[in-house]
């Protein structure tokens, strides 16, 4: 199987010389490079089983970080109060909500790739829908952690749930936070189900190819899937319903998150464009995260160079470029309209963003989110190179995190009562934020060794649908409608 790796590596170089070669098509495009199904299954199984000592070292380090950053620090904060964090008057919201918004943003990529691209039959999506979908679920877990950390009395979180009680009290449906809670819960549940449905055939595959505790594990999860005609048709129906249904959920979640800010009577927040602006921002950071994950998976996991090829980085890179442009458009729109609004507090705030003590962050945000993607991603060669897009994805994520930091604690520093203006200096938020990041990676690492990261059936389905045909002297790719 090692031969495929080499081929994939060299495919790109060859392509330059031999544009119309059939062999070149096969090397470049996964869909045109079919392998026997059994072999692909074995490759995926092997990738799950292979763990080097490095994996365990990283795993252990991350576990320690999670134990310290997340659980110990959070426990301390619950016992001592939010005083050990950096929140103050007027920056009542700090990095906790920055992280909440950030992780919800990350989670958007999965749905975008696996639902929207599925609905639009973008074929390049096939090998990495699951890798992206996993990010949705695990990202939302971190968002949940962050928002619960943020609460002053997290032990009474259940008061935010609507449940009948003798006090005759319900959550306040006027409050954007209540909408938030409902939206995030809905999104977490539906995206988990949407992760699970396409996973069933792969779990059944893994069940059939494993022994020991893993066999029991997959047996329970596969729900007795045998691959009969009826099962497949039910599964396809369910998936197409979910793929359509989850798209509005995805859009609503980040819109509602944006309403937490837009619905408030604060200078800088009270903006009607925040909904789409936040959705695009979420996709921006989400696509950046997907490309980082793919680069890491391709580089570290066995057999992945066959499934994830430069063509995929190329395709995602194009998407990133478009999203970056859209984000820039919304940013400019928001900034310009607010500036023209002429409100003195908004002016002061916009000025503070640029030239206040955290002004560097504002410029860094623009460079990372706009300048660098535009400068790099226009070049097909660059955007097909994993390490380059990895760095671009990383910078976009940092930039988007900065964007949320500017919107939340920095904007909160300026309000209509100048007597109370004050800067925000993070405290225990830093270990907690690192903890959520480590926990995300930890979950992902564990998942990569527990569930098939590549939807083999989906890849095979694509490969069956694709064909190379000669049209005169030209070799063309044809795709047949499957579903």
């Amino acid at each position, binding site marked *: 199987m090692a031969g495929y790796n080499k081929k994939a590596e060299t495919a790109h170089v060859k392509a330059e010389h031999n544009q119309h070669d059939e062999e070149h098509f096969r090397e470049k495009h996964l869909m045109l490079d079919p392998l026997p199904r059994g072999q692909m299954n074995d490759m995926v199984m092997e990738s799950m089983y292979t763990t080097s000592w490095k994996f365990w070292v990283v795993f252990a380090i991350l576990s320690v970080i999670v134990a310290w950053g997340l659980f110990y620090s959070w426990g301390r904060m619950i016992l001592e109060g939010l005083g050990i964090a950096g929140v103050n008057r007027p920056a009542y919201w700090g990095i906790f909500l920055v992280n909440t918004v950030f992780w919800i943003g990350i989670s958007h990529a999965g749905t975008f790739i696996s639902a929207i691209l599925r609905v639009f039959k973008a074929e390049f999506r096939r090998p990495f829908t699951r890798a992206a979908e996993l990010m949705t679920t695990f990202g939302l877990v971190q968002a949940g952690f962050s928002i619960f950390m943020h609460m002053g009395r997290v032990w009474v979180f259940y008061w935010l749930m609507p449940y009948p*009680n*003798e*006090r*005759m009290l319900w959550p306040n449906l006027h409050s954007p936070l209540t909408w938030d809670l409902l939206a995030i819960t809905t999104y977490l549940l539906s995206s988990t189900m949407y992760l699970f449905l396409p996973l069933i055939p792969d779990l059944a595959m893994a069940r059939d190819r494993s022994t*020991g*505790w893993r066999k*029991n594990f997959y047996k329970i999860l596969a729900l007795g899937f045998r691959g009969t005609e009826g099962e497949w048709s039910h599964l396809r129906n369910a998936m197409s319903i979910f793929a359509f249904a989850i798209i509005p959920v995805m859009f609503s979640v980040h819109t509602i998150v944006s309403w937490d800010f837009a619905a408030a009577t604060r200078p800088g927040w009270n903006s009607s464009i925040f909904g789409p602006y936040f959705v695009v921002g979420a996709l921006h950071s989400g696509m950046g995260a997907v490309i980082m994950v793919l680069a890491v998976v391709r580089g570290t996991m066995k057999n992945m160079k066959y499934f994830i090829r430069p063509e995929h980085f190329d395709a995602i890179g194009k998407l990133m470029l478009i999203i970056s442009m859209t984000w820039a458009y919304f940013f400019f729109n928001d900034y310009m309209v607010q500036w023209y609004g002429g409100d003195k507090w908004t002016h002061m705030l916009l000025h503070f963003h640029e030239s206040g003590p955290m002004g560097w962050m504002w410029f860094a945000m623009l460079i990372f989110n706009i300048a660098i993607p535009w400068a790099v991603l226009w070049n097909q060669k660059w955007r097909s190179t994993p390490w380059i897009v990895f760095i671009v994805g990383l910078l976009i994520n940092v930039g988007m995190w900065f964007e949320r930091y500017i919107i939340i604690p920095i904007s909160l520093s300026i309000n209509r009562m100048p007597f109370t203006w004050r800067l925000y200096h993070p405290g225990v938020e830093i270990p907690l934020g690192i903890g959520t990041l480590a926990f995300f990676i930890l979950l992902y690492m564990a998942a990569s060794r527990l569930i098939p990261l590549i939807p083999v059936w989906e890849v095979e389905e694509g490969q069956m649908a694709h064909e190379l045909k000669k049209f005169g002297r030209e070799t063309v790719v044809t795709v047949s409608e499957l579903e």
Partner: protein
Amino acid sequence: MIKRFFDWLKKPLGLIAVGITFLALFSLAAYGISLSQQPPAQPVQFPHRIHIGFGIQCLYCHPGAAKGPSAGIPAEARCWGCHNQIVKTQTSLLLKPLKDSVISGKPLQWVPVAQVPDFVQFNHRAHIAAGQNCENCHGDMSKMTVAENPQIFNMGFCLKCHTKVAGENHDLLVKLTDCGTCHY
């Protein structure tokens, strides 16, 4: 390892172990709940029943109920006013703590049974003035020896009565179900 453990659980011994663990946890929880429902130990086994039997009014010993927020526990001088004339006080073992307390000047430590959390600002006076009787909340003391609470004073208990009393009177309902009426 895990598999062996699960296999073991399926064996009779394992099932028994599961059963015992479950029962132990359940009975601990039940014990905890029942403990919280017991009337607490009091320094004197004060029989409300007998005192009410003598025809002593509630307000004789708890006059604060008609005047202000707290009904109050009577000063020992009030107990002693009658009891020092009763021969049994000198001999009864049950009354010894009272006697000792009066002699030593160290007050008895009563444990209140009818309590609301400290974020509830309850006022007895308003309730008495609104025509509520003591037993509506505190139960029929003439049947109790050591005071115990017939019901848990939680918000549902308060609101049930408040909404009932207000009935169709909207202004009264607003006042009686306003958060700020009890919580500040």
